[in-house]
């Protein structure tokens, strides 16, 4: 297992390099002069300033040198400065990170706790009223756009019933009750899709696993149905589910953009959207790199979990 772990960790290095090249290229693949993306719009008409900035930003050097320079700085946590506020990009991200973290964690936990048991029960009681109801709910869940869920929840629970705030953020560390209330609607909104697809996948893979020969064998040799399901079926059925959870967590990180926008939560996603509108390119680039590296870390954990669940992969 430890050999597998170190191999996976080492395998991340080329991915990080590929990703960093892709993120770096954003500025250069964008149509138009890269320098225009990196200087304040009010200075963009002055030829002299443009040339000065081009030299100061090092954009007159060969692209490879620029990349190495940018990558070296990024490795040290320096992602440049915001054009708009002159704040360091890294600092701006760290400032807003707790909001996004709370939102993502809360909604992941919320949806897995609901989805996995429901998916298992659904598969085991196939075609019961419970299964139909759960399948129907799951289908609704993956089909609902999260901006619609969010707006509908605001409409019902904030505007009509007045139980929860329509938007805004209170830190759970300052005021646990208000903090929890401010996060509840966004988390439900963000977690809906994850919940629905995990439930669907759990159900369909468990059903598929239960049709395999080794399950028949396990039953035939007289194992208790509970043991067959928990030790033989579930372990194997969880493998594809782990992959889907890993993939969906990416959706969760991205979903944070829309959720934070709707609920006016001052998180990293909101920072990126505001920066796109303001054409604050260094911040956009920084957030993209940050989210991506974060996701890579999560992905690694998922892969390790995968190997833990399935020895065939570990020893291949």
């Amino acid at each position, binding site marked *: 297992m430890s050999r597998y772990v170190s191999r996976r960790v080492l395998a991340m290095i080329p991915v990080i390099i590929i990703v960093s090249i892709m993120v770096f290229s954003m500025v250069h693949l964008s149509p138009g002069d890269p320098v225009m993306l990196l200087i304040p719009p009010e200075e963009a008409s002055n030829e002299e300033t443009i040339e000065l900035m081009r030299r100061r930003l090092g954009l007159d050097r060969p692209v490879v040198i620029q990349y190495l320079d940018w990558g070296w700085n990024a490795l040290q946590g320096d992602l440049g400065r915001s054009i708009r506020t002159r704040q360091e990009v890294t600092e701006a991200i760290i400032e807003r990170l707790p909001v996004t973290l709370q939102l993502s964690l809360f909604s992941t936990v919320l949806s897995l706790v609901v989805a996995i048991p429901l998916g298992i029960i659904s598969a085991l009681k196939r075609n019961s009223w419970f299964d139909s109801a759960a399948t129907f709910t799951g289908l609704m869940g993956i089909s609902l*756009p999260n901006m619609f869920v969010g707006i509908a929840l605001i409409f019902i629970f904030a505007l009509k019933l007045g139980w929860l705030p329509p938007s805004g953020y209170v830190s759970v560390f300052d005021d646990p009750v208000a903090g929890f209330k401010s996060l509840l609607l966004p988390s439900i909104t963000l977690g809906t899709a994850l919940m629905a697809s995990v439930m669907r996948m759990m159900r369909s893979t468990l059903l598929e696993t239960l049709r395999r020969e080794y399950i028949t064998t396990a039953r035939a040799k007289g194992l208790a149905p509970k043991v067959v399901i928990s030790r033989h079926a579930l372990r194997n059925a969880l493998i594809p589910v782990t992959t889907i959870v890993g993939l969906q967590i990416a959706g969760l990180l991205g979903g944070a953009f*829309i959720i934070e926008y709707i609920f006016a939560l001052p998180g990293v996603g909101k920072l990126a959207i505001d920066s796109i509108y303001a054409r604050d390119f260094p911040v956009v680039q920084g957030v993209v790199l940050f989210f991506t590296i974060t996701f890579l870390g999560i992905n690694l954990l998922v892969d390790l979990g995968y190997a833990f669940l399935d020895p065939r992969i570990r020893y291949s």
Partner: protein
Amino acid sequence: MAASTVSTTNRTGPGALKVAGGRSVWLKRIRNESTTRGIVGACIILAMIVLALFAPWIAPYDPAGVDGSAVLNGPNGSHWLGTDNLGRDVLSRLIYGARISVQAGLIATALSLGLGIVIGLVAGFSGGWLDNVLMRFVDGFLAFPDLVFLIAITAMLGPNLTNAMIAIGINGFPSFARLVRGEVLSVRELEYIEASHSVGARPVRIMFRHILPNITAPIIVWASLRVGTAILAEAGLSFLGLGVQPPTPSWGSMINLGNTYLEQAPWIALSSGAAIFLAVLGANLFGDMLRDMLDPRLRGQRFAED
């Protein structure tokens, strides 16, 4: 029939060891249920395509027709779904919006599917260094969370529908590739593949004729999710103002407008949200039916017991 249903539910544990009679009644019922739902899904998709194709003849008003005398009117006899802040007819804008969603859903998913299957099959089947290189390449793309990737691409290429579809299509392929590869790994070492090798089948034939048909179920489930996801992604981008640009009507940008006027005119957000929901639901229901029809294991069992 009622008795057989009761007896099957009493036998704990699902699956393989059911009495043939009870199971075949059962299977027929699922088959019928899923077919019914699939047909509902197909009808929704068909309706959307019809709306998209014939929008100019179906829509009661010009979708861009501003009417100062009918601003933020609630649903009524002349405007069934009310009007927006510029007095434009919401229903007509929804009908024209179907064009955007149909295109985004189909074109983007086709792009992801094609790329994903080829790369996943080759990687999983060949293993070794090629697998490694391909999967690192896929990981490079997969490393970007969906919306982060879409936002990066649209921020880079500029916000419009074509760029949105390219972004969504490329963004979707890694998940297909990984899923396909994972499935290939699980069947690669099975006896029937070994048998094909030993009778001298060429790798391409084994990949596409022996492996691919045996792993279609999860790919189709995932593709059904992806058509929906592509529609959602386009709506999300347009919602954030990074997809289709005004005045072209799209469901995503209509929800955004509806969000602004949620208190005075909830019908804008609710109707466009419902439209996206229906479209995605239709795609999903249809995908489920395809799955039940194309799963050879399920089909095999039915033939065995009929």
